């Protein structure tokens, strides 16, 4: 009888757990460790780039509920991978991607495949996001992120597979192409292209009190302006000649140059920096190179696109265009999108500005790249330390992650539609949706104080629930020559980054004689746990403070963990010991199908008829073609605008380069495509045609030629 009771209890508990796991959709992630290093006696390097542009239809992640559903693309999205191996066989993969974030499941699942194929486990793999807010979502390991990083909610395991496959390909090809190399590391300051969007919290830090930056409100100087680069060249061991391979850089800049009303995939400023740098290097050297740009301590650092054009306002309350009948009920009030003309003006202004910013950053990067060419060496020691940290209730962090109401209004320059709503559900629920002010709620003794939780206690009890937010953080320290990379999953503010670096240097002094030229903190790497402000910044509850999920001690937690890890950094000649990769669990929520599927049978489309229109200096090609799921992913361009000149034809713009906007409205097997290109300068006039290209770059359909002028 007693045994029966015990049996029933076991079944009940088991059933409860299964039900619980069902609602959380728990997935134990792999814990792949790297193969033991095998010395070759050479510094070796390989680089590869993979296109990850998905078909349209997915939510654009990063802007929360302001992130629209994608209708096409303006730039292609990529993964760039650099695999480096020093003479002792210490192998590291440094990977960047045009996504808003990288999740722990992407990291661990990619590492699992790489550990098997090229010996790179989670402890030697740094995957970081450029933080573009115009890349796809739906891949997170956390349910709440899948629900709310985009206006389109949901977790799609097929997007995880899609991305993991491409991450794996990028690193595998780079690793299999490892060849003797030389490298050099260095930095250059870049001032004026970014600014601190949360100056008041920045100036709350005692180290900045009374500084000229704060007294003059010099936002452009209240940032981490260091651009750090590892330049890598191939080495011909017979002739001792080198040829450029590429670079890996870190620079702090938010991926918010493009406003949230955008509906196209776009790599934002980092993509354009990489493109401009690639063109400069390729043009100067005659070699095809690959460059990667990771994000630094960008928590409070925005691109210098402010003030935004007024047409970039978020949706405002207005009457929906319902028919207001004289005796019926009143119309529905809703958030209305800005008029199409406003949206177009906003985007055009932003695109012109970010092209300039990217060009300036690339100019400086090219200077650095050229300078590093004179310092290339094969003596580039590398070491690494990896750690998985549990977050809730440890090291000064709060037990429960809570989003502050200050976060819901959006950051300065990226405001949401509800910013300024001090009362949500007035008079029942205080919101404080906006930075500071009502978002501050001093509650002595409360761990999160003075954060006012967004719709608390509903948030933690009903909306987010258990395991809804991240519970672990993965940290990696990698020494590459004179640079120490600290890869973290947070968005660290400028001052928090300074403190983390200072703490690491202090720990390093106790431990070794090595004094790195620069400690480059890589944000948004191997996971995502939102913002890391200092305690003082947290106290003002601006956007960054409201987004610090685990309370005021987050920056200190980061400092402590990274300082401890510095002490584990091997100092001798032997490679790093095998890393411990702790098992972790993902709770992505229920799976749903968001990634469009290709048709079972590809229809015969026949000859393509392309119509070309010119309106207000913008050329638009329209045609019916195969669905995006059939045409993508593809390596080459889909089409191009060609100018007819007196001497022949000239490619004016190619899709995917940031100037042509491609959209597709899909039917079941075919889609209505448009490619739109704005003539780049006022007063420009010419005769143009649009060519639809095949995978090999040959025109398979051509529009008629049309005269177009931009006034």
């Amino acid at each position, binding site marked *: 009888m007693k045994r029966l009771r015990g049996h029933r209890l076991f079944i009940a508990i088991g059933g409860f757990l299964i039900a619980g796991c069902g609602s959380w959709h728990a997935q134990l992630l792999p814990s792949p460790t790297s193969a033991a290093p095998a010395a070759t006696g050479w510094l070796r390097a390989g680089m590869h780039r993979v296109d990850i542009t998905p078909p349209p239809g997915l939510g654009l992640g990063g802007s929360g*509920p302001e992130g*629209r*559903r994608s209708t096409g693309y303006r730039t292609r999205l990529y993964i760039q991978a650099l695999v480096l191996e020093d003479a002792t066989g210490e192998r590291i993969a440094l990977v960047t991607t045009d996504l808003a974030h990288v999740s722990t499941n992407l990291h661990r699942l990619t590492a699992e495949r790489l550990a098997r194929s090229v010996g790179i486990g989670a402890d030697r793999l740094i995957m970081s996001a450029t933080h573009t807010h115009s890349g796809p979502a739906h891949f997170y390991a956390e349910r709440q992120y899948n629900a*709310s990083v985009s*206006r*389109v*909610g949901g977790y799609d395991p097929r997007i995880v597979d899609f991305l993991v496959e491409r991450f794996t390909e990028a690193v595998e090809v780079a690793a299999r192409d490892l060849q003797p190399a030389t490298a050099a590391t260095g930095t250059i300051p870049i001032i004026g292209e970014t600014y601190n969007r949360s100056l008041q919290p920045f100036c709350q830090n005692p180290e900045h009190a009374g500084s000229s930056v704060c007294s003059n409100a010099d936002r452009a100087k209240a940032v981490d302006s260091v651009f750090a680069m590892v330049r890598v060249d191939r080495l011909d061991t017979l002739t001792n000649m080198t040829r450029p391979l590429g670079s890996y850089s870190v620079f702090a800049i938010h991926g918010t140059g493009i406003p949230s009303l955008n*509906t196209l995939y776009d790599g934002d400023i980092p993509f354009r920096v990489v493109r401009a740098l690639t063109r400069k290097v390729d043009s100067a050297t005659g070699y095809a190179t690959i460059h990667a740009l990771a994000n630094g301590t960008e928590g409070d650092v925005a691109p210098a696109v402010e003030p935004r054009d007024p047409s970039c306002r978020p949706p*405002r*309350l*207005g*009457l*929906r*265009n*319902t*028919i*207001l*009948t*004289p*005796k*019926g*009920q*009143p119309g*529905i*009030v*809703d*958030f209305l*999108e800005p*008029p*199409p*003309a406003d949206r177009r003006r906003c985007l055009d202004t932003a695109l012109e500005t970010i092209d300039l910013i990217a060009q300036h950053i690339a100019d400086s990067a090219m200077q650095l790249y050229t300078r590093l060419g004179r310092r290339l060496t094969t003596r580039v020691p590398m070491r690494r330390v990896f750690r998985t940290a549990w977050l809730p209730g440890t090291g000064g962090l709060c037990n429960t992650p809570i989003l502050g109401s200050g976060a819901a209004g959006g950051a300065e320059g990226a405001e*949401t*539609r*509800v910013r300024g*709503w001090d009362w*949500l*559900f*007035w008079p*029942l629920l205080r919101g404080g949706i906006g930075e500071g002010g009502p978002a501050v709620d001093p509650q002595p003794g409360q761990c999160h104080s003075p954060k006012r939780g967004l719709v608390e206690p509903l948030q933690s009890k009903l909306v987010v629930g258990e395991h809804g937010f991240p519970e672990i953080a993965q940290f990696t320290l990698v020494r590459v020559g004179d640079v120490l990379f600290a890869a973290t999953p947070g968005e660290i503010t400028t001052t928090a980054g300074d403190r983390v670096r200072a703490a690491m240097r202090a720990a390093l002094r106790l431990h070794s004689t090595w004094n790195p030229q620069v400690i480059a903190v890589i944000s948004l790497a191997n996971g995502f746990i939102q913002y890391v402000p200092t305690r003082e910044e947290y106290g003002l509850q601006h956007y960054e403070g409201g987004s610090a999920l685990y309370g005021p001690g987050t920056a200190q937690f980061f400092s402590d963990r990274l300082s401890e890890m510095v002490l584990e950094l091997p100092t001798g000649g032997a490679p790093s010991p095998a890393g411990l990769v702790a098992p972790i669990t993902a709770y992505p929520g229920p799976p749903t199908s968001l990634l469009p599927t290709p048709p079972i049978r590809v229809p015969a489309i026949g000859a393509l008829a392309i119509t070309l229109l010119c309106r207000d200096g913008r050329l638009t090609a329209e045609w019916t073609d195969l669905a995006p799921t059939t045409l993508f992913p593809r390596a080459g361009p889909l089409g191009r605008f060609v100018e007819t000149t007196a001497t022949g034809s000239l490619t004016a713009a190619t899709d995917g380069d940031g100037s042509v906007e491609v959209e597709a409205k899909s039917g079941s097997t075919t889609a209505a495509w448009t490619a739109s290109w704005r003539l780049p300068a006022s007063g420009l006039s010419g005769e143009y045609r649009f060519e639809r290209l095949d995978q090999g770059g040959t025109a398979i359909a051509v529009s008629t030629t049309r005269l177009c002028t931009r006034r």
Partner: protein
Amino acid sequence: MLTSTGKRWVLLFLPIAGVAHLPIHAQSSPARLSYVLNAAGTNGYHWRGIWRSRAPVIQWDGAAAVTVGHLSLAAGSWANLEPRSARAGHLSDLPLGTSGLSEWDLWAQGSARMRNITLTMGVLQSRYRRRGNDPEVTEAYGSVRVQAGRWGLGGTAWTALDGADGTFIEPAVTFYHFVNPLAGPALALSSTLRAGFQLGHRIPPGTASRTPGPLGTGLTHATLSTQLGVMHWLSRRIALTARSSVAVQWREDRATRLRGDGTRGAHLRFWFPLQLGLSLGQEARP
């Protein structure tokens, strides 16, 4: 020389014409057709100081509109059905002992929208089944609606063209407690304070009832209501709408069927309307 009716039309038309000439980019957009079909149930029907029914009624509303840029033209009809047999206490428009359609109206209007301002001008003809008791009334109306953040300000003026006299004005102010900022259905929870004034207004409620109908100048009613409206898209262009509200109304009966002797009286009453409808051609939320 314009007649007084002609002057009213001109006055109503001026604001629309003004807005129509503002340079708005959306003007070049193609024509768009939309339709609405609503059915509502409520616990009574009270129209500008006149009880049309004190018993539960079903009302339906159908309209079609063509929109070009910020201008739209719409026409439709509205009807009131009484599912229960009319009794004396119902103050119904129906003959005693009968049920069914008691009123049906036809209307046509033009609207202009500029950002957060909506102006409307139209004509409404109200017809009653109990002919001879209730005359047909034709009125011109003009309304303005302004959305300023979470506040909605509006007002409608009705002026009689035929079958009635005078003008009726109904200003309203609405506060939106919550509007869904997330994806999914459009959802708004709001409270409205609405008042009704008549200026030399008179709608005879029927030659057979010996009562003069609401008469004169002054406040006829004030209503405070809290309503929840939801619009859920079934497809990209088809939406299901639902609205419900709780309202408390203070009403001054300036001589209605409620008081056969034509004396005044003030009353408080709760309304519980519930409306379900279908809207076609309404672009889904992004």
